[in-house]
Structures are given as structure tokens and as C-alpha cells.
């Protein structure tokens, strides 16, 4: 049976993929490149620009990859939730579950040379850029195996080789940085673009409009992506913004409103945006998305919205469910196979957590490394001048 053959093709490579990043393409022996055309859930709405078509081309491999990757992201965020509750992750932890489609769709449309910069809800974007589960969990728990050696934390994930620029704690401050990345790309004439992501809360920051003005003035290849999950921590968007149509706020800068829970809509929009900015200067993409958790782990998430609303969105618009339905509709895998993929994701996450727990905490001299690029060759002391002496490199 074609199904059985396919299922064996699915299950075998899974075990070998456990130690590496889950984002490697698994070999599918059948129907790899058949084009499947998918319609986005809703049409795009444009401001000062024509909208891309609702039909998106994809293929079985991409569909399965979307499902697998999103399942992994979802599992990672839920695991982070329980790690936080068991006090292994401290401080602030902002979870991305519900919004995975934005990361997945964006990655499908761009290359690793295009830059992404975002705020503090960065775990899944880091994973999408090629970061490993081990690096994520180790960083969250403050261990040396983390992507920033444990010195950054949840809000400071970076991956330079994949052009992922973080990971920023101050709301809105990453937008001028993103325009700076775009400036450098224009300066070097490389033909890449920058996706500068921010939330509906940050959309009211002045520096965003300052940066947008400059990007539009100099035709910088900057795509401003507003991940509108409708709540700026506890404040609903209609209570914070006179005009919550964030894609229109650029005025002279064109904008596009996208259903952020539909990975294919996101993919189409990002592809369109990339082509647009390389010719015409900046564009704003508003991703209409939703977060299931509260703003962060310290926020229950239910004081400013009803549980019915949350479960309603989960039932009707969940990004993983959408892909699951598509896969089942196109007969690419069975229910059981999909469940197995989710189980595999769970297993990988658990393994990564176990490995991350083994990673040591940073040593005391690490306190003083990487403050300056090349130190001054002087000794550095702790507050009492007796301990923590180290020679700066």
C-alpha cells in the first residue's frame, strides 16, 4: 500500500534526526515536489499597495516540514512553561505558542542571509533560524551551552551565522536596530532584506516611526512586521492605539494585513514583501495572530481576556491544526503518523532538556568576559577587591 510504504519512509529517518536540529529536511521518497495549491484563509488587505494572490504553491515536503517544525516549537514552549514553574527558568519568559505560523511562514519565504530581528518573544524565531533545542534550553536555564553562554537569558537569543539579531528586552528599541541592519545591507548592495519584528504594544513607540521615516527616506530594504496578538501585556489594542490598523500606520509606507495564524499566508506575504522592498523601500506587514499564554510567565493571561476567547481561537485558528487538516485532506500522512511526529517532538524536547540540565553554570571569570571586545590586559576585581580576580583577555 502506498500509505504503508510512506509510513515506513517517515518513521525511519526520525530516529536519526534526534540529535541534530529538527529542521533538516527528511527524505520523502514519494511526492516530494508535486505542487499543491493552497488558498489562504482570508484575502490580504493592502494599504497603498496591491495585494498578493490568495493561492500559494506548496508541496508535500513543505507541508510535512511545517507540521513537524511547528509541533517542535509548540512543544518547546510548553516545556519552557513547566520548566519555569519548576523554577529552572527564572526572570522573564515570554512564550510564543499560538504564533508559530509567523516564524515558519517567514522562514519558508527567505534565506539565511536575510536578517531577522525581534523583541523578547524570540525562542521560536531562534529555532526557525537554525538554533538547536539544546542551545535554547541551556540559555533559558542559564548554562554555558546556551546560545549566549547563559549570559543573555530568555530575551537575548542571537545567532550571528544565521543572521538572527535577537532578542531585545526594551520594547521598540529593536526597530531602529533593524533599520540599521537594512542600512548596512543597502550599503553593501547585497540584495538581502531585513525583517524587523515588533508587537502591537511596540507599534506605538515613537522610535518606530522615526526609523520608518528614515527607512522610507533612503529606500532601505526593511520589512516591518507587526505581530499583532491584540494585547500589549494586559492592554487590549483598542485601549492603546487610536488606530489599531497597524498596517496603515505607516501612512506613506505601504502595508499589508495578513492572517498570522495561516503559515501559507505568512509565506506569501513575506515573499511578496521581499520582492517589494528590494525595489521600492520599506513595507509594513501586520500579522494578525494570537498568543495562548499570557504576556509572560508572570501573567496568567486571563484577567484581561476570557478563557472562552482563548479556547475559541485555539479551536478555530490554531496554526498546527490548520496544517494537520491540510495534510489529512491531501492524504499525505495518517492521523497516527502525525501523532507520532508530535510524540517525537516531545521526545526530542525532553532529551534536549536533560542534556541542557547537565550543562554547567558559567564560571566566575565568565562574569568579565565579553564586556569589551579586546580587553585592556588589566585585572578585574569583584566589589570587595579580594575575590573574583581575573585577567581580561
Amino acid at each position, binding site marked *: 500500500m502506498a500509505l504503508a510504504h510512506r509510513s515506513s519512509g517517515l518513521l525511519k529517518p526520525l530516529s536519526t534526526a534526534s540529535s541534530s536540529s529538527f529542521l533538516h529536511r527528511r527524505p520523502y521518497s514519494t511526492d516530494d515536489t508535486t505542487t499543491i495549491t493552497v488558498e489562504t484563509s482570508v484575502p490580504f488587505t493592502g494599504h497603498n499597495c496591491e495585494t498578493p494572490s490568495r493561492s500559494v504553491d506548496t508541496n508535500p515536503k513543505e507541508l510535512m516540514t511545517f507540521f513537524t517544525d511547528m509541533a517542535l516549537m509548540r512543544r518547546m514552549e510548553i516545556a519552557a512553561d513547566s520548566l519555569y514553574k519548576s523554577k529552572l527558568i527564572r526572570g522573564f519568559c515570554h512564550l510564543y505558542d499560538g504564533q508559530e505560523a509567523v516564524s515558519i511562514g517567514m522562514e519558508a519565504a527567505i534565506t539565511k542571509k536575510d536578517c531577522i530581528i525581534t523583541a523578547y518573544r524570540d525562542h521560536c524565531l531562534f529555532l526557525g533560524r537554525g538554533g538547536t533545542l539544546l542551545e535554547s534550553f541551556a540559555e533559558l536555564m542559564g548554562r554555558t551551552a546556551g546560545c549566549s553562554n547563559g549570559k543573555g537569558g530568555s530575551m537575548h537569543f542571537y545567532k*550571528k551565522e544565521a543572521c538572527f539579531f535577537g532578542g531585545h528586552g526594551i520594547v521598540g528599541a529593536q526597530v531602529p536596530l533593524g533599520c540599521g541592519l537594512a*542600512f548596512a545591507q543597502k550599503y553593501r548592495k547585497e540584495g538581502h532584506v531585513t525583517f524587523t519584528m515588533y508587537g502591537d504594544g511596540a507599534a506605538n513607540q515613537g522610535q518606530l516611526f*522615526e*526609523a520608518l521615516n528614515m527607512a522610507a527616506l533612503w529606500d532601505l530594504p526593511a520589512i516591518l512586521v507587526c505581530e499583532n496578538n491584540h494585547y500589549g501585556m494586559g492592554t487590549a489594542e483598542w485601549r492603546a492605539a487610536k488606530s489599531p490598523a497597524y498596517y496603515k500606520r505607516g501612512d506613506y509606507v505601504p502595508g499589508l494585513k495578513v492572517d498570522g495564524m495561516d503559515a501559507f499566508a505568512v509565506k506569501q506575504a513575506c515573499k511578496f514583501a521581499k520582492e517589494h522592498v528590494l525595489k521600492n523601500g520599506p513595507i509594513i506587514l501586520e500579522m494578525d495572530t494570537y498568543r495562548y499564554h499570557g504576556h509572560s510567565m508572570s501573567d496568567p493571561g486571563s484577567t484581561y481576556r476570557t478563557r472562552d476567547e482563548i479556547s475559541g481561537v485555539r479551536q478555530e485558528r490554531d496554526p498546527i491544526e490548520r496544517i494537520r487538516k491540510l495534510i489529512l485532506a491531501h492524504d499525505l500522512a495518517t492521523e497516527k503518523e502525525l501523532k507520532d511526529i508530535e510524540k517525537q517532538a516531545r521526545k526530542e524536547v525532553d532529551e534536549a532538556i536533560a542534556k541542557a540540565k547537565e550543562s554547567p553554570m558559567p564560571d566566575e571569570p565568565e562574569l568579565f568576559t565579553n564586556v569589551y571586545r579586546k580587553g585592556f590586559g588589566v585585572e578585574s576585581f569583584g566589589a570587595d*577587591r579580594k575575590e573574583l580576580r581575573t585577567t581580561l583577555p
Partner: protein
Amino acid sequence: MASIFQGVGAATSLSSSTSIDTKKFHFCSRRSRSERKASFVVVRSGGAKVENRIGGRAEQLVTNAVAAKADTPTAATVSKPGHELLLFEALREGLEEEMERDARVCVMGEDVGHYGGSYKVTRGLAEKYGDLRVLDTPIAENSFTGMGIGAAMMGLRPIIEGMNMGFLLLAFNQISNNCGMLHYTSGGQFKIPVVIRGPGGVGRQLGAEHSQRLESYFQSIPGIQMVACSTPYNAKGLMKAAIRSDNPVILFEHVLLYNLKERIPDEEYVLNLEEAEMVRPGEHVTILTYSRMRYHVMQAAKTLVNKGYDPEVIDIRSLKPFDLYTIGNSIKKTHRVLIVEECMRTGGIGASLTAAITENFHDYLDAPIVCLSSQDVPTPYAGTLEEWTVVQPPQIVAAVEQLCR
């Protein structure tokens, strides 16, 4: 030799209360390496740089100086090596040399391009390098500083100019959180080789908001370096060093020092960012200063010498980190410290320096450290009040006399 001294002496007659006779320039003769005062000491790598500089040459800039024409001494017309220029031209020269050398160096700021810079530091560069490399930004300090930092994360080496240092308060978040901390929070992945520069300090009745000393606000930010230039020689050298450094460097210039004239070498030179400058070696007291106060100190030094004191004047130049090596050696010699700065009394560079010296060199001190700073008031507009806000030479003289009793 005597004619040179006389020439210098005539140029430095001042309306201050101290009378200076030309023949009393005997302190110059102690530095009998007089042939060196016209040429320049090349920076010796590794060792502390020793500079012979007669403060008199810089006296042209003191607010009340009478612009007396010096009889050009014959020795001065002997062709000296180097070329003469003003401080802002020295900054421009350093900037231009670095832009020539490395295509990644770019400038961004308000009116730096077509206008040529509000203090002419970037004049002519936009015509030469184009609008993208010498970028005229809109008035949006927070975001263009952020843009510069983002560009630096991608590998460029921007120089961000604040038209007045006070305006950079709007960019404090970007400077503190992104500029200073990104290298650390990314685990060393990104370096931020920006230079943030601009004029600060108390000018000539510019008003409270345009007379700010931001070095005291920025000094706590981890991950940045701060330097203050005071002469054309060190302005060019520090500018070049700051651009070449992989760390974010804040270069503090002073509004009133842009028209200082000096002869600097033709050869290329780069100064050490973390080193202090020995302006005048001495025995009795160490006077630590930087930027414009250096000139007030040198003016006071003349009076002090006439009264028989021998002050050692060090221009600390590096505001973060302090060059405790040079400073410490000086303290071990003189055992008395006077700090003269333009920052406010509360939380200024002098306050940190006092703490650092007390911590490290307490055993060598014969007297408590005296720190002369500006008053803790917004800088008034009225001329007389403004003068009283800032440390003046008679106060320095009085403080030294008090210290050395």
C-alpha cells in the same frame, strides 16, 4: 631660545589677576628640551607618552584672553615638520584618513553631509564619499543612534554624531542597552564598533540644555569606552583610535575647543585610547583634568609656578577606564591630588576618579583628594553666572595652595 619664550609670553597676557612677566617663564627653561616644544613627540608604544607642550600656545582660547599678537620669534619661522591646523580640522583629518582606509567607515548625524557639520568637522566629506557614507539624518537621535548600532552589528563601522552631546540623552536607551550590552548578552557574537561623538561642555552662554556634560551620565554603562580630546594632536589621534577600536567609544569634544590651533605631524599616528597625557611634569601636586579644564589648569599653573609651586598636570583623556597606571605613578611621586573637571559635583567623573584613587592609592596620599567641579546647577545664561558655574583658574590656584600647606 629666549626670543621664543618672549614671544609666547606676549601672547599670553591675560586679564586675570595674576601678572605674568615674560622673564618669569623660567619654568620653561626647566624643560630644557626646548627644541622639542615646537616639534612633537611621537607616541612611544608601550611607554607612557611624554609631551612637552607649553600651555601658552593654547591660551589663545581662554575666554578672556586678549588676542595679543606675538612677535614671531626667529626660531618659530624655521621650517618645522608637520602642519598647522585647528582642532576641528584635525578631527576631520583623522576621520577622512580612516574613511579612506576602510570602506566600512561611515558617518551619520544631523547636517553632517551637505551642510558640512555644524562645527565643520565633516565639511567636504559628503562631496567626496557620497550621501550614503556621510548620511544626513532627520532629527531623530534615538533611532539614528539605533540605526548606527544595527549597522555595526552587521559589520559596518559607523560614526554617530550628536550635534550637541546633550541631544544624545534621547538616545540613552540605545547607547546603554544596545551599544554597551550587546556584545555581552550575545555571548560575544556581535561587536559594536561605533564611535559616538559630539561637542559637549559649557560654552559661551548657550543656555542650560546646550551646556551639558554627558560623561557623568554615560560613565556607568558597561561595555563602552569614553575618551575626551583636548588638543588637535590628541583629537586626531583619539579619533583614529576610536574608529579602529572594536568597542563602542564615546568621544567627547568641547564646544569651545574647536578653534584651537596647533602644529601636528604629517606622519600618520594613532593614540592609545586608554592612556593619559602628561602635560607638565612636576613634583608638588598632581592635577588631574581633561578637556577644556586643561587650559584653565595650565593657566593656573603659570601663577603657581610664579608662586614657587611645581604642579604636575595630567590630562586624563581616557574617562572610562581611567589610566590608573599613569595617575598612580604620579601620585606616588607627589602624594597630593587635585582633580579639576567640568562635570557637576554630584556623580561626575571627578567623583568616580576620587573613589578610584582612594581605593587604590590611599596609602600614598598625604592629604585628602580635592575635587573642583562645576556647581550642581543648570548652566545659567547670564555670562557672569556662567563663569561662576565653572571652575576658574584662581580657584585652582587657591586649591593648590590649600593642598600644599
